[in-house]
Every structure is written in structure tokens, then in C-alpha cells.
């Protein structure tokens, strides 16, 4: 009887850890996941009880994998699904970073994304700074090519936009950020979910 209580406790601790790992997923999903795994554990334990005496709960939980391992798979899927449906740059960047650490294509997508966002932000920053530093912020064309931004001393060359850098900077800056978001969002549709998983290498008991 005491043993049963101990194993019940073990299962509860396991499920509580998994619940912790699933933070951020919709509450209904979390309940369903836990209900399903609880049933799995109970049925497995009931089966093994008659055959083996040595701590069946231990064996069943070990065979199931760690809560961290299972939790990370659920989270990776949720993140991928969410990022594909979302316009939030931070969520999309998170998913892209994870993708970048797994494959070369992911890394290229990440680089392209960062260039896109950096350009967008730079254009907006220029537009905002122009009224404060009219002589030092702008887009110049010179022997060395095009120079955008704030430079001291002011680059030699012909300034292209003048005050127009404010509307252009804001417009193109936002367009770059939006465009990059749409591009990454579209690219993420083609990423196999496994590539977004946190697990880079399977632990001993893992898939």
C-alpha cells in the first residue's frame, strides 16, 4: 500500500514537471496532454505489475522519456505553428534562430532576416535623427558609393534625399521590417518541425 502511494507520488511529480515544461501552451492543450500521458502511465504500470515487481513506475517513466525531452518537442511544435500564423517579429525571430542552429538553410534565412530587419531599423533611425542632426544624417553618393546614416565628419559627396529622408526612411524602413517578417514567415512554412526542436542530440533514452 505504501509502495502504491509512493509510485502515485512519483507519477504526480513527473506530470507536474511536464506541466511546467508546457508553460506557454494553451491551457486546454496542456490538460489534454497530461490526461493522455496519465492514462498511458497507468495502463503501462498496470500491465507490468503482474510480471515484474521491481519498481514498475520507474521503468515506465524511464521508457517514456524525461519531462524536459517531451516538453521541448511540444514547445517546438507550438512555436513553429505559432510563428507560421503570426506577424510578431520577435516570435518569428525566435523560430528562425532555432532553425538557424540546425541547418545551413536556416542559417542563411536567419542572416537574410537580420539584414532585412537591420536595414529597416537603420532607415527609421535615420528618419528620426534627421531633424536633430540635419547636416550629419542622410544618404550620400560619393566616389566610394552610397553612404546611409549618421556620419561625423560628414562624408564628402552629394546628398541625395535631403529632408525627404524622413518620409522615405519611415516608409521604406517599415516596408523592410514588414517585408522581412512576411518573408521569414513564408520560409518557416517549409521548415520540418524536427528542425525546430530544441533537442540537438538525442539523450540516451531519446528518439
Amino acid at each position, binding site marked *: 500500500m505504501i509502495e502504491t502511494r509512493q509510485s502515485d507520488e512519483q507519477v504526480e511529480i513527473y506530470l507536474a514537471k511536464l506541466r511546467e515544461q508546457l508553460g506557454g501552451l494553451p491551457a486546454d492543450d496542456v490538460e489534454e496532454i497530461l490526461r493522455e500521458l496519465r*492514462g*498511458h502511465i497507468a*495502463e503501462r504500470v498496470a500491465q507490468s505489475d503482474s510480471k515484474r515487481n521491481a519498481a514498475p513506475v520507474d521503468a515506465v517513466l524511464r521508457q*517514456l522519456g524525461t519531462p524536459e525531452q517531451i516538453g521541448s518537442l511540444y514547445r517546438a*511544435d507550438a512555436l513553429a*505553428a505559432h510563428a507560421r500564423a503570426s506577424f510578431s517579429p520577435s516570435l518569428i525571430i525566435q523560430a528562425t534562430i532555432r532553425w538557424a542552429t540546425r541547418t545551413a538553410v536556416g542559417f542563411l534565412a536567419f542572416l537574410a532576416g537580420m539584414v532585412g530587419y537591420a536595414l529597416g531599423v537603420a532607415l527609421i533611425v535615420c528618419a528620426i535623427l534627421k531633424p536633430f542632426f540635419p547636416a550629419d544624417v542622410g544618404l550620400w553618393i560619393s566616389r566610394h558609393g552610397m553612404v546611409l546614416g549618421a556620419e561625423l565628419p560628414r562624408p564628402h559627396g552629394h546628398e541625395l534625399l535631403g529632408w525627404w529622408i524622413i518620409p522615405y526612411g519611415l516608409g521604406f524602413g517599415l516596408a523592410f521590417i514588414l517585408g522581412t517578417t512576411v518573408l521569414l514567415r513564408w520560409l518557416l512554412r517549409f521548415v520540418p518541425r524536427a528542425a525546430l526542436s530544441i533537442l540537438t542530440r538525442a539523450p540516451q533514452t531519446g*528518439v
Partner: protein
Amino acid sequence: MAEALDNWEAQIRKGWLDVAILATLWQGRLYGLEIIRELETRSDLVVAEGTVYPVLTRLRKDGLIEGKWEESESGHPRRYYKLTSAGRNRAQSLARHSHEFLSKIDALIQPLLKGQAS
């Protein structure tokens, strides 16, 4: 070397799990543990049983399978899964692609298995 092999195997397992799960549901509906038992007896794909459930959730959210909770004599409700019509189509096309892919790889590695010189 052993690590490289382990890693390769883990990736392969992960990649094939979707196809294998859809295949177990081809004949009819099963609940999670039945799917796992089926995979354990008929493949080497399942190492940690808990990793099958996230795949089931994903396939369900993609509309390839649907799940239905039912009470059981064990005292715990079970979620039975079955293929949707989109799932049947996907399962068949994955099966065709897998078969073609595997036959080519098989032909490619035949000389290695026989130990023949290239």
C-alpha cells in the same frame, strides 16, 4: 564514431515517425499506447515512448488525424485516433515517396552490403 551513428539514427527515427504513425492508423482507429505497441513490434522507431504523443498532437493540428476521447475499462479515458480523408491521402503519398526513396537507397548500398569493390 558511435556518437555520429547515434545522432544519424536519431535523425532518421525522427524523420520516419510521421509516416510510421500514419501507417499504423491505415487499418483503423487506435489509441496512443496501441500505436506505440504497434511501432515497437513492427519498427525500431520508438526509443522514448513519450515522443510519439507530440507527433500525434501535431498530426491532429495539421488535420491529418482526428482524436476522440472515450472512457475505458482501465478507468482512464483514452484518446482514439483515426485518419481523416486528408490524412489518408497524405499517408498514401508519403508511402509512395518512401518506397521509391528506399528502393533507390537500397540499390545504392547493395554493393557495400556484399562487400564488393566499386
